[in-house]
């Protein structure tokens, strides 16, 4: 289906960014790479404008929280190259207490609300965003509810815990 293989994409990106990029793998065929926040806009610009890649379509921006990690908040971009019919996933992990990352609204207008949603739920500060406000939650909320420290239900309830099943 796709006209470019993941190996070719890795080759093109590695030639430009070298060891600033970590190749995470290809879970279920979707190439996943990781980078630092210093390179993220350069990388996204390269992916969008390179004549061979043409990842012109921003599918999604979201985040994930791994509380036990050194850099707990991960921002995840899904891009789609319509010309090559291939997708790519880019991750940036951020340290707690310094959850800043440059905004992607300079590349895609559609990033605006996606970043607002990510800020609303994970507290990721997108530097340079034109209007970084809460979007789905109430404005006077003080926490970022999708972080793992905020339980959904009564935290004393144990009957639904994984360790009951040896996990």
């Amino acid at each position: 289906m796709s006209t470019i293989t993941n190996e070719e994409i890795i080759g093109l990106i590695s030639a430009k960014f070298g060891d600033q990029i970590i190749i995470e793998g290809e879970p279920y065929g979707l190439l996943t790479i990781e980078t630092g926040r210093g390179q993220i806009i350069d990388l996204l610009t390269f992916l969008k404008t390179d004549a061979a890649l043409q990842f012109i379509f921003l599918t999604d921006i979201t985040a994930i929280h791994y509380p036990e990690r050194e850099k707990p908040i991960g921002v995840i971009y899904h891009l789609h190259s319509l010309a090559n019919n291939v997708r790519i996933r880019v991750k940036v992990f951020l340290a707690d207490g310094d959850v800043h990352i440059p905004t992607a609204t300079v590349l895609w207008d559609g990033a605006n609300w996606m970043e607002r949603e990510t800020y609303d739920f994970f507290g990721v500060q997108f530097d340079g965003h034109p209007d970084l406000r809460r979007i789905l939650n109430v404005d006077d909320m003080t926490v970022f509810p999708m972080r793992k420290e905020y339980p959904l239900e009564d935290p004393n309830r144990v009957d639904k815990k994984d360790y009951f099943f040896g996990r």
Partner: protein
Amino acid sequence: MQNHPVYTDNDPQNELSTLNLGPTHPATHGVFQNVLQLDGERIVSGVSTIGYIHRAFEKIAEHRPFYQITPLTDRMNYCSSPINNMGWHMTVEKLLSIQLPKRVEYLRVIIMELARISDHIVCNGVLGVDTGAFTGFLYMMEHREAIYEIYEEICGSRLTTNVGRIGGFERNFNDIFFRKVRKFLVDFPPALAEFEALFNRNRIFIDRTKGVACVTPETALSYSWTGPLLRAAGVDYDVRAMNPYSSYQDFDFEVPVGTSGDVYDRFLVRNEEMKQSMRMIDQALKMIEKEDSNIFHADVPDYYLPPKEEVYNNMEALIYHFKIVMGEVDTPVGEVYHSVEGANGELGFYLVNDGGRSPYRLHFRRPSFINYQMYAPMSRGMLLSDAIINMSSLNVIAGELDA
């Protein structure tokens, strides 16, 4: 979009008025609030406020086993819940690497295409109502009722269907189902033709919709638009054609595109998609006849609940039933992104699994949410009445917008 002078606060000519359109306004068909600055009837600027029916589905999903997340997806785009259900099932099946029998995939295509038709019926019908023509809406509603009766035949419910299971369907489809689908394929095309005859060449309708809210392909792509809206702007991106799932590659169908991205083009694209959907249902019915009619799920006892009579009479089935319901079944660790062509565009599921009983993280890429963000910027310079029609043709569903 026309340019219009913007007055400053101190300007004596400044006679802007502020209008709160929504959150409960009959013309917005849902809970949408837009605070508009109006110069007479012309919109100078607008700010959208969303989140009125936010229900924290992503958080809830982190505490539910996979099969209990299906009812949450129902309540996103409730005009075409089966597509959401199937999209979720397919995401989990992709994670578990389950291969489905062809018959199940074709049955899914029938249900999904019926859902797409019912969604487009509502959208285009309401667009007619908002331009002052109630008749078309009334004619078409009868056939949405027929589709809902088809849903009832396979899952018992009409709006929030919760149809299917991970690995297939909960029960085989009966003869009444196939009879009703065949009847629908006969009854609906004349109604759609009548509907098109009422609107497509209607002077009033064309005057109200043509050239309203034109969108260039570049803008649409920059705003990550998908679905009929993007196709009306002239980009032929359809997940069914580009990344076929559920055996869509076996079907012969076309992806209709528009040229100007205005309200009229979106209307035409949706009408044409309904015809393509009917073509696909017709093909699916023929292809199903060649398959074994007893197959309605994949053979995956680890994930698919055994039949109830087995559970009561067979020890092994009881164990499997218990393991599945209690979430004791092991699932692979991994992350998966799967998307389906929802009625409004690319409906994506980003699932990160740590092997536990519920997802570690689940994110829904909701087309309504992403499509709607252009609404306020594109309303600038528009007449208020045009902005209302524009909102109808965006087909933003509040449940999907807020999740």
